[in-house]
């Protein structure tokens, strides 16, 4: 019969700091293990290897195939190639978030994935693409880090600086994330309801989604965003509401929903994302925009006063040698300026298109002579892209119509299939 211990702790804190150190270390290790796991899960995976039978050979070159996936992983793992690895890109982001003024603008202006305009319908629209309505508004990057959130427009300039419920998006007492954690969202700010519609997720809690397929990014976006409270109505530590946009498989039903469906936001065209494509900065043919009068108020470009000019206008970049080019990489040449008119290289100049001079040769658009209108708006960071010019041209003459999109769908695909898992309706 052992002596019965009667003494209870007296005037002592119940937890010793040593135990606390142990516990904190365990918490840290558990967290880091789960981070590593999640990181591994998010890496491009054998799952996303495209079964070749679903792909006509002609298109294969356009898609990230096995080689690219393998390459992305090789980059992750091999130190020699570190310069372009995602880890380094992370660091870039951390560094860049400290940049100020024009340096920051310059850097951020190059980070968005820019859609091409849909000139013709890509093959396998229904198998490989998502469609969703594009909210009307300002396209921007939203970055949450160090207890605050900053949104930057396409040209890199700051739109808002505000607190948000995104991880590390505000200085609140409840620590929602370690201090080094940050998030990057690709958004459209919709003025009427003061809401950021998130159309893509680039980084979440410090983990890169650059090398993930759109399918995975959308999935992650949809499961992650709401749990932070970012979709809640505004409050002291959360100035703007965030919202996701319903994303549909690009079949007949999905297309109709996106095209005719009613949404909380004003629509500005439809966006098409290839489900296998990674997030790629700059222009990409794997994300497309399409508009018509029914689903957008802004089908035809307006001039600086907001009117649709009688003639199509384009903004081109003036190179040192007088060449006028688009923003594509590599740039497409649309004309040349006489030496005497060259004012200053690198400026963006606005021209009117003279319809009679335009030609389409082998499916390629040639503008012929251009009429100089003036300098473009100073806020411009980009010239127009080739696809935009082309789309604007066809929109004025023989637009690609919704019926064309529907017609391109494979009638053999099961029309009655239940909405896919990835459909993201609130």
């Amino acid at each position, binding site marked *: *019969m*052992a002596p*019965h211990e*009667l*003494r*209870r*702790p*007296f*005037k002592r*804190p119940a937890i*010793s*700091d*040593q135990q606390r*150190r*142990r516990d*904190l*270390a*365990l918490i*840290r*290790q558990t967290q*880091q*293990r789960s981070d*590593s*796991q999640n990181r*591994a*899960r998010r*890496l*491009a*995976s*054998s*799952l996303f*290897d495209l*079964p070749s039978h679903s792909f006509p050979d002609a298109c294969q070159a356009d898609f990230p195939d096995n080689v690219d*996936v*393998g390459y992305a*992983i090789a980059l992750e*793992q091999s130190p020699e190639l570190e310069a372009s690895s995602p880890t380094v890109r992370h660091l870039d982001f*951390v560094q860049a978030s400290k940049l100020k003024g024009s340096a920051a603008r310059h850097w951020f202006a190059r980070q968005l994935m820019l859609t091409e305009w849909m000139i013709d319908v890509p093959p396998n629209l229904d198998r490989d693409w998502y469609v969703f309505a594009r909210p009307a508004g300002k396209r921007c990057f939203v970055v949450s880090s160090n*207890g605050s959130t900053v949104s930057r427009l396409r040209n890199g300039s700051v739109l808002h600086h505000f607190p948000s419920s995104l991880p590390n998006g505000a*200085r*609140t*007492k409840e*620590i929602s994330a*370690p*201090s*080094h954690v940050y998030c990057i969202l690709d958004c459209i700010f919709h003025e009427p309801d003061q809401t950021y519609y998130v159309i893509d997720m680039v980084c979440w809690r410090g983990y890169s989604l650059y090398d993930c397929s759109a399918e*995975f990014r959308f*999935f992650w976006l949809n*499961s*992650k965003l709401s*749990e932070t409270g970012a979709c809640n109505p505004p409050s002291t530590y959360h100035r703007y509401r965030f919202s996701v946009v319903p994303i549909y498989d690009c079949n007949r039903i999905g297309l109709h929903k996106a095209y005719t469906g009613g949404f909380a936001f004003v629509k500005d065209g439809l966006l098409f994302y290839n489900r296998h494509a990674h997030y790629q900065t700059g222009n990409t043919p794997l994300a497309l925009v399409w508009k018509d009068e029914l689903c957008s108020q802004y089908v035809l470009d307006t001039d600086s006063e907001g009117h649709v000019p009688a003639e199509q206008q384009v903004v081109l970049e003036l190179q040192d040698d007088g060449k006028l080019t688009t923003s594509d990489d590599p740039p497409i040449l649309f004309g040349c300026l006489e030496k005497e008119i060259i004012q200053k290289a690198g400026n963006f100049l606005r021209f009117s298109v003279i319809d009679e001079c335009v030609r389409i040769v082998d499916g390629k658009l040639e503008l012929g002579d251009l009429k100089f209108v003036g300098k473009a708006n100073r806020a411009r960071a980009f010239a127009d892209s080739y696809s935009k010019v082309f789309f604007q041209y066809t929109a004025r003459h023989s637009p690609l119509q919704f019926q064309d999109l529907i017609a391109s769908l494979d009638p053999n695909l099961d029309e009655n299939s239940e909405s896919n*898992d990835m459909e993201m309706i609130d």
Partner: protein
Amino acid sequence: MVMEATRLRDLGFLFGKCSSRIFKDALAVASQGLPSFPNLKISSHRGPPALWISEEEINSLAIPFEFSLIMAVEITQVLLNAQSVDASARKYAEESLNQFQDQNLPSFFLALSGELANNDKPVDSRKLAGLILKNTLDAKEQHRKNDLIQRWLSLDMFVKAQVKGCLLQTLSSPVSDARSTASQVIAKVAGIELPHKQWPELISTLLSNIQQQQSHVKQATLETLGYLCEEVSPDFVDQDQVNKILTAVVQGMNASEVNNDVRLSATRALYNALGFAQANFSNDMERDYLMRVVCEATLTPELKIRQAAFECLVAISSSYYDKLGSYMQDIFIITAKAVKEDEEPVALQAIEFWSSICDEEIDILDEYGSDFSADSDTPCFYFIRQALPALVPMLLDTLLKQEEDQDLDEGAWNIAMAGGTCLGLVARTVGDDIVPLVMPFIEENISKPDWRQREAATYAFGSILEGPSPEKLTPTINVALNFMLTALINDPNNHVKDTTAWTVGRIFEFMHGPTVEIPVRTILSVLLQCMKDVPNVAEKACGALYFLARGCEVVGSASPLSPLFADIIQALLSVTHREDAGESRLRTAAYETLNEVVRCATDETTPIVMQLVPVIMVELHRTLEAQKLTSDEREKQNELQGLLCGCLQVIIQKLGSAEPTKYTFLQYTDQMMDLFLRVFACRNATVHEEAMLAIGALAYAAGHNFLKYMQGFYPYLEMGLQNFEEYQVCAITVGVVGDLCRALDDKILPFCDGIMTHLLKDLSSNQLHRSVKPPIFSCFGDIALAIGENFEKYLIYAMPMLQSAAELSTLVAEADDEMIEYTNQLRNGILEAHSGILQGFKNSPKTQLLMPYASNILQFLDSLYNEKDMDDIVMKAAVGVLGDLADTLGANAGPLISQSVSSKDFLEECLASDEHLIKESAQWAKFAVSRAISG
């Protein structure tokens, strides 16, 4: 069995040291219980007639001869020598005993039990004989204990019977020490044998002893029953025998028993037998009777019996809380009287009764709080709430019975301390309701000239800070805090200051933040001044600062500590350098507070933390330079090294977690690693643990750059992984392997053969504490994730281990809470291993190597789902593994996956979970599974 000449010589037999005995006599002593004397035959085989004895017979005859000699003559002296003041005699005796045990265990047992039973022997040798017997039957470490149990069970039947006979015989000895020792040994043997359905007659033999008239036999038997109930699980004693035991015990406790020793042993026996009385406590009549006997015993004139009876009441309060309703009124009267009038040991038990009721109700209410269904196993009867108006004044009275200088005595425990502690528990049980009952006492006493009154008032206030709502306390807090800050500087009495500083700490612990109106700067300046006071007061001031800092932990740059941050650090460092910092745990408190202050540094103050790095490093360096220390000094030095390594660990974690500070801080890595490696040269578990944790944090911060330290560090890593004895060190080292994996990625590969070897050895060891094993499995996952397909060569070792652990973890039936918790930890470890391995192999051409294991993994998941007893963490990990399997093996595993329950019902259940981490894993798994199945 061979007689060994060496041992015979050791015993002195051959040199005639002992009085000579003839063979037959020696044999006679030992022949009780011998199978039979060999039937010796006259034979004329090969020559003249002679006594013909086979070799076997010689051996069997020789054994008792051998031990009887030792038993009779030598063992007594050896046992006495083993207690000699002469160290060399002691050492020699201990060695002989060990040798004896190693060389002839049966004789050893017989000799010792014979010694214990022999009334002609000195009491000291008998006691030690019993003690050694006890230690050869039981040990603390589980693996050793198992060995000892097996050893006893495999002993010859006759030897065991002989030993048990001696033990039972000893219970009748007139020597009380011998009886008492025998009681304990009997209980140990019973603890081994009853679960194996051996010694079935034991309990009835003991019960028949009770019927004897001799009081000393009765007393010893009751004591034996008490120990027996402590050793043996109720599962192995049938209800009929339980009833008989309880009847015997309660009879012994009864007032009609005139012998106090018998009553005391009976009362103590009841304390242990309570665990057997489940059925009896459910029966109203039997329970009434038991309670009456216990309550009556609390009123006997004999102090020890009263104390033992109250101990029974305390035990009943926790084991049979739900059966107490009708007795509470009587118990209150009994306890209140004891608290007021009785001697301290009894009064302390009486208070403990109420503390224990509080413990029960706090637990029950906690359970109510955690799910609103309020269907806890035990309902709350709100005894404390009902007793409150009488209970609180009773406890407040005790607060005035302080002892002088109780704060300077680490081991002090008196009625004032017990009363205050109970008051604190009452506050946690009833919350707001206690405040109006205590406030008048505080107001009445807080300004009295007698220090006892001031201290009691302050202690009362400090005690009730945990429990009531902040709203209820806030109005008082600000007034009180003001008053106390003044008292901390001005009160002439140390005891009052000590309690005041403690109370200030409690205020910050439970009420931190905006509720306190007094500027932090004012509070800080008082606390910093207080840290120069005598050690016990300074230690409490450090504690108060610890909680103040903890309350100031805000993300962002505006911390109220920032303006005085450097002063705080400076003040704490000065405390650590005080001559008297060794008293009252002061140095430890100062470093712990420093850690907390570092943790809550903001962007603004991290530069000051950066300056602290070299300061702490120099301190650590100094401890390593010290030479020629006495063992006492060395112990202190080790303690200090532990604190310094702990502090560095906190700093590393702080500075390593933010990019800008990380790079500046990492410039110290070389020197820091050098220090840590030197620390490992000192043999002290706590220090190793702290240094290990610090290195883990450092490695994670340094990333790939840590590689250059691996060569130097690796031997210590191995050492840690092999430290079975101090399993905490081993566990932490396993965690550090995980840190290294994440820091080094595949650069850890060259070290993996060694690491994996040790981890596999650890897993197979039955010496290593079981709590280390789940983390080892998780660590497999960390390694696999780091080295990817290079894990290939370990698959043939790791996978079968995972497989058998998985099988084991699904076979746990009828487990207690602790076992269920462990089982879940084990499952989590296994699942994390699978996740890591599967993800590690992803996109590798060797993915196919995992295919053979897929069906086992899925079966494991299915069985987890079917068992229905996994916790949330396991559920999340399990559904994650489902996803990992689908992700890595893809379409190849599609058919297997679609056959499994996990991919359907289990996945659905996880998708519907309210726990977002489970849901998240499940969504991911669904995504991966649907791809694998459709692809």
